[in-house]
């Protein structure tokens, strides 16, 4: 055998040996014992989170492509108790970063897993002050699987903080219709009661969104929430400046214009409000949603007839805003249209009384352990009544429908649904 042949034979043998070793190693990696995921669960249940995390990391070293392990690792990082003390914020963000890395390596085998990935991704983004990305992920989670309730709750919280009551109310009512858990169905409606009972202090909104906007200045709704929060926290110059910048960034977005005009209204800059209205893009200016702003300017000019016309449109578009109703009533009275003004005044007084009742009513309902108990119909009825008087008509209908589920022939609820449904037709 020639020298060349010998070397070639040796090389081939080495190559095959390496290949066999590699295959064996891979096989060994696949079958070698990896730390148990159940064991990690048990450690987490016992509050031994660092050990659970280490065990999951070990599992992933043995099974680096395990989607389930990556998902659990992400979950553990996001749901373990938050750190405290110095460096807590940085640690929380670091955990969120690692969770996101794990989530990038999950290959969802089904919709439910895909929805969970989006849920957790949203949470990771939320911890990293990226509320816009968080919202997108949670919406995607719900789109994939509406039965990921935590995504819905997370969105409700976010909308509440951002003052996006329209979106929040709409989402809660939608989730209520598809939620399979009977207690959670009621809880979703009760959440809307809670939001009326516990309005946010402007300073809390500012504290919440200042770090968000600082890190993500492109987050429109965070910037709008911060801007309005600043205005209402007696920092009008900063707030209005921020809102104006958002209109410049998003000149086609009605939310940016609405927030700026609302900020100008809240800070009493009505002259400026009038000049800003003149710059509204036509599609936005013609929207009933913006009629309220036209009404406000007319009101300030003492042009009661124009104010009345605008507020009628505004109330038609949003019959659930007591503020609009009050302004319409005052404009009518100032214009001498006393009969209609008096009718509206009666509704307004009822709404004021309902406002005074909301906290106690919420506390009572919140203390109930099983909100789906059919014996709670009297409570449901009181809440439905409060919601109706407080002009939350769609919620009132939802509460009455709960009553009808327990008592399908209930005459009062049948009549209420029949009475209220036409009033909310076409509402978003």
């Amino acid at each position, binding site marked *: 055998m020639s020298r060349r042949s010998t070397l070639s034979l040796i090389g081939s043998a080495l190559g095959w040996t390496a290949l066999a070793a590699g295959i064996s190693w891979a096989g060994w990696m696949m079958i070698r014992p990896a730390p148990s995921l159940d064991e990690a669960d048990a450690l987490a249940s016992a509050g031994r989170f660092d050990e659970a995390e280490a065990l999951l990391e070990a599992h992933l070293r043995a099974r680096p492509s395990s989607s389930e392990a990556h998902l659990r690792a992400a979950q553990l990082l996001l749901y373990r108790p938050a750190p405290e003390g110095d460096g807590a914020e940085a640690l929380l963000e670091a955990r969120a970063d690692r969770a996101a890395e794990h989530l990038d390596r999950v290959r969802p085998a089904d919709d439910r897993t895909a929805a969970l990935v989006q849920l957790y991704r949203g949470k990771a983004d939320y911890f990293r002050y990226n509320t816009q990305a968080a919202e997108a992920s949670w919406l995607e989670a719900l789109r994939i699987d509406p039965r990921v309730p935590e995504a819905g709750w997370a969105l409700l919280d976010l909308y509440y903080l951002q003052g996006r009551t329209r979106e929040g109310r709409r989402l809660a009512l939608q989730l209520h219709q598809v939620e399979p858990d009977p207690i959670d169905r009621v809880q*979703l409606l009760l959440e809307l009661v809670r939001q009326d009972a516990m309005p946010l*202090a402007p300073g*809390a909104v500012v504290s919440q969104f200042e770090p968000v906007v600082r890190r993500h200045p492109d987050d429109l709704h965070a910037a709008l929430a911060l801007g309005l929060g600043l205005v209402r926290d007696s920092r009008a110059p900063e707030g209005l400046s921020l809102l104006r910048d958002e209109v410049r960034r998003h000149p086609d977005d009605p939310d940016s214009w609405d927030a700026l005009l609302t900020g100008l209204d809240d800070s009493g800059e009505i002259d400026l409000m009038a000049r800003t209205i003149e710059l509204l893009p036509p599609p936005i200016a013609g929207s009933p949603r913006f009629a309220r702003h036209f009404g406000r300017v007319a009101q300030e000019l003492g042009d009661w007839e124009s104010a009345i016309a605008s507020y009628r449109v505004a109330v038609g578009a949003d019959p659930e805003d007591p503020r609009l109703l009050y302004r319409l009533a005052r404009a009518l009275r100032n214009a001498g249209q006393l009969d209609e003004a008096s009718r509206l005044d009666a509704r307004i007084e009822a709404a*004021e009384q309902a406002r005074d009742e909301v906290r106690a009513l919420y506390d009572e309902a919140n203390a109930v352990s099983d909100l789906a108990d059919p014996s709670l119909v009297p409570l449901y009825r009181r809440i439905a009544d409060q919601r109706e008087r407080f002009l939350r008509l769609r919620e009132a209908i939802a509460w009455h429908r709960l009553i009808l589920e327990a008592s399908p022939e209930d005459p009062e609820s049948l009549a209420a649904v029949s009475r209220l449904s036409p009033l909310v037709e076409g509402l978003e």
Partner: protein
Amino acid sequence: MPTMHRSPRPPCRAWLRSRAIVSAVALLVLGPACSPDPSSDLSSSSTVADGSLDLPAATGPRPHPAALGSGMGSMAVDLPELPEFEPPPEQSSTIRFRDATDGSGIDFEHRSGNSPEKYFPTANGSGVALLDFDGDGRLDVYFATTRELPLDAPSSSKGNRLYRNLGGGRFEDVTESAGVGYHGFNHGVCSGDFDGDGTPDLYLANFGPNVLYLNNGDGTFRASPAGSGADLDAWSSGASPIDFDGDGLLDLYVTCYGRWTEADAERYCGDRALGVRTYCSPLSISPSRDFLLRNRGDGTFEDASESAGILRDDGRGLGVVAADLNGDDLPDLYVANDLCPNFLFLNRGDGTFEDASELSGASRSESGFDQAGMGVDAEDVTGDGLPELLVTNFRGDYNTLYRNLGRAIFHDVSAWAGIVNDSMPEVGWACALADFDNDSWPDMVAFNGHVDDNLPLLGQDAPYAEPAKLWRNLGDGRYRLVGDAGPFFAGAHACRGAAFGDLDDDGDLDIVVSRMDSPPALLLNESEGGNWIRIEPVPSGHRSAIGGSVEVHAGGRVIRRLIKGGGSYLSSSDPRILVGLGDLDRVDRVVVRWPGGGRSELLEPELGRSHRVPQDDPTPVVAGEERAG
């Protein structure tokens, strides 16, 4: 498979979202703790339900404008420039005050009773009364003070004090000799001739039984006996004298804040974890009724609230002003309520009132919100003869100016008046619509100070001491903040009550301000003033002129000023009517409109002096006492 978690329980989120102080870190830190149990079983057990949601399109983060290069969006928007919030305050205003407290002889110091327990009544402070108790022609000053709670605990308070005006900016403490050194929990004080003897008495609105000090006419007072009906035992805030039924006997309207006992102090507000306790919200106090006390004329008073048609138990009453608010020469009432609708009671002239509160538009803001009303005043600021209303409110809300549209209709024109932004940062208490520079247009002042002295410990940028603010009337009811009204306005204070009057008899309005746990401030007016005239209405038979008004006809204008009771915050001001005339150097006539009807006229009165106008004299007179201008 990971489990489908049950939705988070609201009580945790409820804590987060309450009006308690919340920090951003707390929101984020506690967020996960409100999430499903992280140690829960990760295996799936949920059932699947059908259902879909009509959700908005999920959009990713929008690119930062800087990344877009030139031309962002479909159009550029040339928005109007924001004002310099607002036009910079006037730096060379005609209005200026000198702090003359030092060297005045006034050594009173208020005691709030503020303690770690944060008993709610100790937040509201006290008022000041200006009255000429000894009839020497000079305004004297009476200071009210609260004290520590409970009422039977030892107190460091030296009690209420009365200072006699010696002239020349000097005052002498005559409390002991006068017998008005009340040691109690006194919020509001008002002055009026309740026994009809021609001398001003003092009424103290207390947490506890109220006190009526009757002036003996010799420099001393005696306390009205217990059981007189004036000694209401409630949580009274302020009071205003008013002869509501026109019988010539001076009645009283007493505001009450609510129901509170020491047991209520067990409620903890603030951040227990940080050990920072704050005052609870007014919403924690149940509202209670006010009292309209009818003077029987025999030293006793009876509760006429119900018979008069104004018994309401839904107010947390603070400031009150009695004046003719609808031009019918009858004294009406306007009450500031804290986070409740303000009250407007219009006198019908038959011993009853019309409750016009809600219909008038003066009970709430222009968008229908109950505001935290504290101080009040009424005066015509637009020159149309109809008096406007002013209410001071809490931080984060603006002071509200209601324009009188006639027909008992008022409209919140605070934005139009230009006072929204400048008044939102502070907690407002005493206030006035008063012409400080004698240019014939009532200016506006608010004395401020927070309730809590420890909010910075909770990370809030909310100091306890706040600047007082003064706005000059631009000549039509719109206002502009005065940037340099004197050293007092350049500093920060925890103010509460204030009274307004010409203490040094130089023809302009001075101010005495009560400050929490501090000496008061005696602010002498040194404005570059215009011409002036002062009217001292003298009703017949020692009746009250409250509900009347003074009209000065000059230069083709009619300048109308109300004769008021109460006003400001828990305080009582100079009963004489000082009318600024600006450049007008001649007055055609002055008309005094008496409550209940009747007129007296003064023809071509001399400017720069006081004129006593007696109701009894049926003929036009040119008369007055010699008062140095």
